[in-house]
C-alpha cells in the first residue's frame, strides 16, 4: 500500500475491479521488502517507540512489528528525580521487554541501528542484519549538543553528570549527592528550550532539596538557568516557599535565570561553572549540567532533521515531511505545542500507530486527538501538574483545545496530585511495558 497513493487507491476502489484493487490495498506485496505481510519496524523502545509497537499489535495483530532497542531494560526518565530524592530506587522504574515479546507478539531485537536505508526501505543493524519495512517509526529520544558549553563534552559525563537519560547517570548523580558533605552546594544548569521534560529540572531541584532537608540541612542548591522563565514556575516557587524556605534568608534554593544564570563555561576538574555575561565563577560540590538538546543521532544521520535539529512531521500520521514511509514520534519530533514529555510521546505514538494501521490497510487515517499531563513532585506529598487536550487545526497543525487544560489550581490539594503523580507513572509504564 505504501506505493499506492490515495488517488490510486480511489481509482482502483472506484473502478470495475474493486476486489482486485482492494486486495492490492489490503495485502500488498511490497516490492522493496519482498514480503506479502505488513511490516513495521520501530527504532527506540521508550515512551514513543514502546507504545507504538504495542499499540500497532493491539490495533491490528496481523501487522509484523519489530522493535529495535539497544538496551535490554528501560529506565524511565519520569521517576528518576524521585530516585535522586531518595523516594524510589532505580529498580522500581526499570522495565523489561518481556511483555512486549511474550504477551503482545512484538519481535524485539536488542541491537544498534547503523543505517536507515530509506530509499530501499531497510534498516541495517551494526550486527550486519538487515530488516525491511513498509513503515518505519523512529523514536530515538534526544541527544546533547555538547559544543554549546565550553569545557563540557561527552567524555566529562562520568564526573559531571547530565542525568537526563535515566539509568547509570541517575545513579552517578545520586551517589555524588549522598557523598557530598552537609553544607555543600549543588549547582544545576537547566538547558535552553526546547528540551526533554520542561518541568524536569525544577522537579529535580525540589527532590534534591527534599533530600538535603532530611539529611544535609545546611546545604544549598543554586540553579543557573539558560532561560529567563520555566515551566510551572509559579507553582514550583510556591512549593519551594511552602517546603524549603524559598524567598527567605534561609532559603535552601536560589534560582538565577538568563541572562545572568546562563552557563557558558565549565571547569570539570574543579566543578566550577561560569555564568552570565561577566562569567562569574561558581564552585560546586556537585555539578549537574543538562546540555542543550537535539533529536537522537540516528534522525540527523538519516536526514530526518531540519535546521532546528529536530524532525518535521505531518501530525495527522507523524510521517516525516522529509522522507516518505518514515514516521518520527516522541522527543525527536517537532511536536509543539505538545511538549517533549513522556505522556505526549505516549499519546503521539497511539495516533501514529492508528494511522499506520489505517495506511497499511488502505484506509484514510482518522481525526487525531492528543492529551498531555505532566506531573511533578515538589515534595513526597506535594504534587503539581499541567494538562492539556490537543486536536488538529484546520491548517493541519496541532492546536490546544480552547478552554481545556492548564495548571494545578493554587488552592488544589497537593497531596492528591502527589498520589496522582506516583500512580500515573505506574499506569503509563504498564501501558508501555506491561
Amino acid at each position, binding site marked *: 500500500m505504501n506505493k499506492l497513493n490515495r488517488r490510486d487507491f*480511489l481509482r482502483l*476502489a*472506484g473502478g470495475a475491479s*474493486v*476486489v482486485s484493487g*482492494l*486486495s492490492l*490495498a*489490503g*495485502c500488498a506485496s511490497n516490492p522493496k521488502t519482498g514480503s506479502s505481510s505488513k511490516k513495521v519496524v520501530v527504532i527506540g523502545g521508550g515512551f514513543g517507540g514502546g507504545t507504538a509497537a504495542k*499499540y500497532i499489535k493491539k*490495533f*491490528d495483530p496481523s501487522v509484523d512489528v519489530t522493535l529495535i532497542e539497544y538496551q535490554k531494560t528501560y529506565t524511565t526518565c519520569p521517576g528518576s528525580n524521585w530516585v535522586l530524592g531518595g523516594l524510589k530506587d532505580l529498580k522500581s522504574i526499570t522495565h523489561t521487554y518481556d511483555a512486549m515479546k511474550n504477551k503482545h507478539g512484538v519481535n524485539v531485537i536488542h541491537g544498534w541501528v547503523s543505517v536507515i536505508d530509506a530509499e530501499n526501505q531497510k534498516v541495517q543493524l551494526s550486527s550486519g542484519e538487515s530488516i525491511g519495512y513498509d513503515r518505519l517509526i523512529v523514536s530515538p529520544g534526544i541527544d546533547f549538543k555538547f559544543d554549546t558549553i565550553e569545557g563540557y563534552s561527552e567524555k566529562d559525563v562520568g564526573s559531571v553528570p547530565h542525568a537526563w537519560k535515566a539509568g547509570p547517570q541517575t545513579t552517578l548523580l545520586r551517589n555524588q549527592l549522598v557523598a557530598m558533605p552537609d553544607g555543600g552546594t549543588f549547582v544545576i544548569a537547566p538547558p535552553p528550550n526546547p528540551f526533554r521534560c520542561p518541568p524536569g529540572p525544577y522537579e529535580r531541584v525540589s527532590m534534591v532539596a527534599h533530600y538535603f532537608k532530611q539529611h544535609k540541612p545546611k546545604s544549598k542548591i543554586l540553579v543557573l538557568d539558560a532561560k529567563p522563565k520555566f515551566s510551572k514556575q509559579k507553582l514550583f516557587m510556591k512549593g519551594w516557599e511552602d517546603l524549603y524556605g524559598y524567598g527567605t534568608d534561609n532559603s535552601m534554593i536560589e534560582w538565577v535565570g538568563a541572562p545572568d544564570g546562563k552557563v557558558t563555561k565549565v571547569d570539570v576538574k574543579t566543578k566550577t561553572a561560569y555564568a552570565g555575561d561577566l562569567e562569574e565563577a561558581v564552585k560546586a560540590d556537585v555539578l549537574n549540567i543538562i546540555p542543550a538538546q537535539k533529536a537522537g543521532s540516528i534522525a540527523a544521520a538519516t536526514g530526518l532533521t531540519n535546521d532546528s535539529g529536530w524532525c518535521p512531521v505531518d501530525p495527522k500520521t507523524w510521517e516525516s515531511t522529509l522522507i516518505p514511509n518514515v514516521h518520527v514520534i516522541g522527543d525527536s519530533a517537532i511536536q509543539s505545542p505538545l511538549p517533549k514529555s513522556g*505522556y505526549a510521546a*505516549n*499519546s503521539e505514538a*497511539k*495516533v501514529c500507530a*492508528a494511522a499506520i*494501521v*489505517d495506511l497499511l*490497510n*488502505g*484506509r*484514510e487515517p*482518522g*481525526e*487525531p*486527538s*492528543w*492529551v498531555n*499531563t505532566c506531573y511533578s513532585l515538589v515534595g513526597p506529598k506535594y504534587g503539581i*501538574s499541567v*494538562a*492539556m*487536550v*490537543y486536536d488538529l487545526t484546520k491548517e493541519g497543525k496541532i492546536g490546544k*483545545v480552547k*478552554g*481545556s*487544560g*492548564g495548571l*494545578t*489550581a493554587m488552592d*488544589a*490539594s497537593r497531596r*492528591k*496530585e502527589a*498520589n*496522582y503523580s*506516583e*500512580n*500515573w507513572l*505506574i*499506569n*503509563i509504564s*504498564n*501501558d508501555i511495558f*506491561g
Partner: protein
Amino acid sequence: MTLKSLITTTSIAVCSLMGLHSIAFADSHGGANHMGRTIGVSCAGCHGTDGVSHSPHLRSISELSEEKIVTALKKFKSGERKGSIMNRIAKGYTDEQITAVAHYFATVNK
C-alpha cells in the same frame, strides 16, 4: 458517497472476502468508534490500558457503566463536579466526543 464511507464500505467488503470479522474494521475505523478509541487510548496514560488501572489512586474507567462515564465527564466539564485533573481535561471534549469515549470504554475488551 463520501471518501470516508467509500473506504469504510469497501474495506468491510474486502474484510468479509478475506474471511475476517467486519467489526474489527468498523471498530478501528468507524465514525464514532474511531473517535471514541482515539480519545480512549489517550486516557490510558493515567487510567491504564483499556481503562484498567493498576494503582489505587487513579480510577479504573473500565468498571464504570457507559452512562456513568458520560455523567461524570459532563459534570467535570461544566464544573459541577470538582476535580483536580479531570476538570481540566474534560473541558477539551465536545458532548459528542464524551459519548463516543464512554461507548469505547463500555465496549473495549468486553
